[in-house]
């Protein structure tokens, strides 16, 4: 509950609005991550430990209504530099 009702530099209100956005982003991340059944980069899943470029070389798009997800292909033809083939990053 915000006590501060001021119009001037009301950081309490700004932070409340920010929290709203943070929740939104957290939801989007959760749903998209849950749907992505593979592992790449920082996204690691114990149940799907392999990288899967055939099905998942794709952007995830999240829609708030009904937590719907859509997908968009990754553009692999950069304008100015040579393309870098997707492959597992192993060290």
């Amino acid at each position, binding site marked *: 509950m915000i*006590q*501060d009702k*001021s119009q*001037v*530099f*009301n*950081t*309490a209100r700004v932070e409340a609005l920010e929290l709203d956005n943070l929740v939104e982003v957290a939801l989007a991340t959760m749903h998209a991550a849950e749907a992505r059944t593979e592992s790449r980069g920082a996204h690691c899943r114990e149940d799907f430990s392999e990288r899967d470029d055939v099905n998942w070389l794709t952007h995830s798009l999240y829609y708030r209504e009904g937590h719907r997800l859509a997908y968009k292909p990754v553009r692999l033809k950069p304008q100015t530099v040579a393309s870098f083939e997707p492959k597992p990053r192993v060290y």
Partner: protein
Amino acid sequence: MKFSIYRFNPDVDKKPYMQDYDVVLEDGDQMLLDALLRIKDLDDSLSLRKSCREGVCGSDSMNINGKNGLACVTKLSDLDEPVVLRPMPGLPVIRDLVVDMTQFFEHYNSVKPYLINHDAPPETERLQSPEDRAKLDGLYECILCGACTTSCPSFWWNPETFVGPAGLMQAYRFMADSRDQAMDERLENLEAPDRLYRCHNIMNCVDVCPKKLNPSLAIAKIKDLKFEQAREHKCNAKKHIEIKVL
């Protein structure tokens, strides 16, 4: 821990006043900013700027027990109680600990804090030798928190005209840059009697800088460049005459 904090909300208050807080700290509260956030849990009407909480963004500069500094890098154990917190001196207070930095950034902008180079851009970056790069050490690190400028008496009394330590040090930062070509223009820009020469080496700026920089010395070096410029002009004038004679 006891605090006494400057409060002013233009919506409610006619005049600023000091409000006392007694806050219970928890383990891990080491910096002043931690304590301020505890206070904000108790009283969300306390306004202050903050962002990175590690002395890089320069948002939470304030007057702490009479000395300007960043709340996030000021250790609680170093402070005498009650800790008196006030907004930075000499700038208009928007609310509580938040000051209006417009004037500060206008001065900063007035010294053209960017590289001026009229050569055609090369294929790659404009290169610099390690020695030339080293000349920028102690200058480029400024985070524009405003602690120096708002602790400077010359700025307090001449906020409209005096550029202030932060702006002047940035002016020198670009004069010292081997890639910059606007030395004459930059020196000319600071020649008006009150823009640069209001500095009286009081050194409050050096005293408070959270990055341990030395604007005072940078200002003295700008004056050196002035001498050099005058000498070069004379040499050039001589060359002119010699060419005419030839």
